[in-house]
């Protein structure tokens, strides 16, 4: 029962479908027939137009591509330039430290030791006879060190460009050996750069045995350029001051000027 009904339904459906499809087909055909004439003409035109268009597009595309290549090349060169500039900047920033040091050494800026102010100068410098400078001496000891430390002359008259010798005396009055270390200062400060020591007892540890007394020489000279510096025009007294500190084991004083 069910199957017969289904069959009937199916056939009916098919029939309807077939009918509609034929009708559709007819419709299609009529439309096609109508359309072909116009469409052929249209096709011909459009193909020609398309051909023409495609030809133009090809040349246009070629132009576009070459321009893009150009830009690519340009971009590449610009990028390399920028990269080179960046690398150069980094290099320059690293080179800045030694370069600035060189500059400071050449000009003596910021209190940097001027290269060439060393022993070579001593052999060739000429004394400036008409400029007599009074060098006074001062001695100090830190509270922790029990030395008797004093200069043996209160002053010396020196001319720039002439080496001079001065003496200090240190005595250890205690019953045990004491190691001392000294540093110096020059007043006025601006004169300090002209006050050159060839040899002294500073910056090195000195050991004095119990009740020992020693002479400590300072061998120095004043740079002949002292006479040419306008800021030194009114300086006729330079004070050299030494201070002794007790050197304790395990303590290392930083060397001044190298910090």
């Amino acid at each position: 029962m069910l199957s017969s009904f289904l069959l009937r339904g199916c056939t009916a459906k098919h029939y309807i479908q077939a009918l509609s499809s034929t009708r559709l087909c007819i419709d299609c055909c009529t439309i096609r027939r109508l359309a072909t004439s116009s469409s052929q003409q249209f096709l011909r035109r459009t193909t020609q137009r398309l051909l023409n268009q495609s030809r133009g597009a090809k040349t246009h595309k070629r132009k576009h591509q070459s321009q893009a290549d150009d830009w690519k090349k340009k971009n590449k060169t610009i990028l390399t330039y920028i990269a080179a500039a960046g690398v150069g900047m980094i290099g320059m920033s690293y080179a800045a430290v030694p370069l600035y040091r060189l500059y400071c050494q050449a000009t003596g800026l910021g209190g940097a030791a001027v290269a060439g102010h060393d022993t070579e100068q001593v052999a060739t410098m000429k004394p400036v006879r008409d400029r007599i400078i009074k060098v006074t001496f001062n001695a100090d000891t830190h509270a922790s060190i029990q030395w008797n430390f004093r200069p043996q002359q209160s002053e010396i008259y020196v001319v720039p460009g002439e080496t001079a010798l001065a003496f200090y005396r240190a005595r250890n009055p205690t019953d045990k050996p004491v190691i001392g270390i000294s540093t110096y200062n020059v007043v006025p400060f601006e004169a300090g750069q002209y006050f050159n020591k060839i040899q002294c007892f500073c910056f090195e540890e000195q050991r004095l045995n119990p009740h020992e007394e020693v002479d400590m020489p300072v061998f120095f000279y004043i740079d002949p350029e002292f006479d040419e510096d306008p800021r030194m025009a009114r300086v006729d007294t330079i004070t050299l001051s030494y201070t002794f500190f007790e050197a304790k084991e395990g303590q290392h004083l930083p060397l001044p000027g190298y910090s």
Partner: protein
Amino acid sequence: MSTAMNFGSKTFRPRPPDKGAFPLDHFGECKSFKEVYMQCLRNNHFDNSRCRIESKEYLECRMDRQLMTKEPLEKLGFNDLTEDLSEENEARS
């Protein structure tokens, strides 16, 4: 220490001398030369220029006794003394 970076004004920074430190004369080997030099200074109103021979002799004493590195005296600023030593002696006497 003030580290103001002013152009033209140099700040003072103590720096160790070129030749380091004198070793201590523990036995007073050159004490007599020092006494002569100090006496000379006192006699000449502490004018260093007149006692250069004495200071040179003191340094030579130190060099001879290995209390100082041996060096030609010209490098210590005594080239005027080594050149015309006799002349200066005549002038002094």
